[in-house]
């Protein structure tokens, strides 16, 4: 899938910006605070109707304006015009495909796949287990709406169960324990399904990820992702392992009034040559690992959804050495359309830059040349 052109109105610094994109690499070049990331943000809006950096829609509207409007022309098998319109006064966002209001955002998701690499993503390798779960949950959900459904049910069960645990902490009534037993059964049923989905996903994803890593690193480091569930359980019968772990924590769960066992506590461990990245990895290795994850995601989604995602990369070449940056830009070229922000192109003469690639110079929300 390709985005051919974009038309922004009142979108942050972009009062009125129209750009025709290249089908290959699009370098967006400009100083700090000139509106580079906003361009990526606008493409992300078109693909998901959501904000790239979790800003509020209100904050995206240019100062003293009442709305923003983003129109993009996509082509895959057919051409589609996608338009996102946000009205500040009503705090209402409308999504149109070919000028038909589609109402729910979920219609958009999966149809216009997008893979992003932005500075806050460093949390995936360096942050807490919850950051990794959030990342993998979002990748699996994009490919499987069944997974998303179970995840939502499971989160609901967690809330109900912790509320009940708190009630038991207060009253210790025998009746409530009977209720706890059935909430535990629901927890185990749904939680085991989540764990099984994650195991199945990782089996497939591992290859995509390792291939990507090989491509950008060219060395013999072997990266692996390991899924650690139910306190490092090795039990093949997941339901049984789940029940066993729960038994161990039975009284503690009541004392704390919270759910202590389940896929909401799991982690994904990243290893390089069997050494844990989090403990032994250098900054550069973290970065490479993250980039390989995103490329793996790209190829995974491409295969599962059957459409080529658009790649958005914000400010990532700054921290990489010339060799790796060149590898990545060459790799990007192979796979399709990508958008890359840079502060100064002259420092990056080693990046791939072919005839069909485009350099967009941007200053204060204006395109200087494109």
């Amino acid at each position, binding site marked *: 899938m390709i985005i051919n052109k974009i038309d922004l109105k009142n979108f942050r610094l972009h009062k009125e910006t129209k750009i025709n994109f290249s089908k290959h690499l699009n370098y967006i070049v400009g100083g700090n605070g000139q509106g580079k990331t906003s361009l990526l943000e606008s493409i992300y809006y078109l693909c998901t109707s959501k904000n790239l950096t979790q800003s509020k829609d209100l904050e995206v509207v240019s100062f003293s304006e009442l709305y923003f409007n983003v129109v993009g022309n996509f082509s895959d098998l057919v051409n589609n015009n996608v338009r996102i319109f946000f009205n500040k006064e009503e705090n209402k966002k409308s999504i149109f495909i070919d000028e038909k209001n589609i109402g729910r955002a979920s219609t958009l998701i999966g149809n216009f796949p997008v893979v992003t690499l932005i500075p806050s993503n460093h949390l995936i390798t360096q942050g807490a287990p919850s950051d990794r779960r959030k990342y993998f949950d979002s990748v699996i959900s994009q490919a499987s*709406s*069944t997974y998303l459904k179970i995840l939502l*049910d499971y989160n609901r069960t967690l809330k*109900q*169960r912790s509320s009940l645990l708190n009630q038991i902490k207060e009253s210790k009534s025998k009746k409530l324990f009977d209720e706890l037993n*059935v*909430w535990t*059964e629901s927890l185990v049923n749904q939680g085991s399904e989540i764990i099984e989905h994650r195991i199945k996903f990782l089996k497939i994803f591992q290859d995509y990820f390792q291939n990507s890593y090989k491509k950008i690193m060219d060395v013999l480091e072997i990266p692996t992702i390991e899924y650690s569930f139910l306190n490092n359980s090795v039990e093949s019968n997941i339901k049984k392992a789940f029940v066993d772990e729960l038994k161990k924590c039975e009284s503690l769960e009541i004392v704390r009034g919270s759910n202590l066992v389940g896929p909401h506590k799991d982690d994904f461990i990243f290893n390089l040559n069997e050494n844990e990245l989090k403990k032994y990895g250098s900054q550069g290795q973290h970065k490479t690992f993250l980039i390989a994850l995103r490329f793996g995601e790209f190829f995974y989604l491409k295969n599962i959804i059957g459409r080529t995602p658009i790649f958005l990369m914000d400010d990532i070449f700054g921290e990489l050495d010339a060799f790796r940056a060149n590898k990545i830009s060459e790799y990007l070229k192979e796979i399709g359309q990508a958008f890359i922000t840079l502060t100064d192109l002259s420092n990056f003469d080693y990046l791939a830059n072919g005839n069909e690639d485009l350099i967009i110079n941007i200053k204060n929300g204006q395109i200087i040349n494109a």
Partner: protein
Amino acid sequence: MIIPSTLQKAIDELSKLPSIGRKSAQRLALHILKSELLEVQNLSKSILELKENTQICKNCFNISENEICDICKSEKRDKSIICVVEEISDVIAIEKTNEFNGLYHVLGGVLSPLSGKDADSLNLKELIARVKLENSTEVILALNPDTEGETTSLYIGRLLKTFNVKVSRLARGLPIGGDLEFADDATIGRAMLSRIQL
């Protein structure tokens, strides 16, 4: 803005109704205002009667005009099967199908610790008493297929374990008469998992 207070009051009352917003309430109020007096009297009478002439069936907690509802009283119904539902609206939904000829039992909710619904606040003791008294052979759990409904089904299943009664749950799957391609992915996924052998 100046609106006669009688009209405003009617709009306010109407907008308390479920799925009626301010604008719909206003449209309804103006419609009633324009209607014949007799029409309006009939409407308000039927609303009043709904409240005054109905009660909750002592047996199954369905809506009824007498102490025991018409379904529980009927000679034609199979008294050995009880279908457990969450709300009265679910009885209406199942009755419309004409596929079920047993009795109902309205729970009046499902287990939900978050909203303070525990087992004692549901009509569960009464259900157990009925299973004993009516010598039921089967209890069908027709609760909503969400987390709370599923968990409540598990709970009731455990309660009834000691009785010699078959306990079943409604199947989950594709809607009838719909095209497979238009069903949402989660539904198709579920239907695939709980497929049945021919």
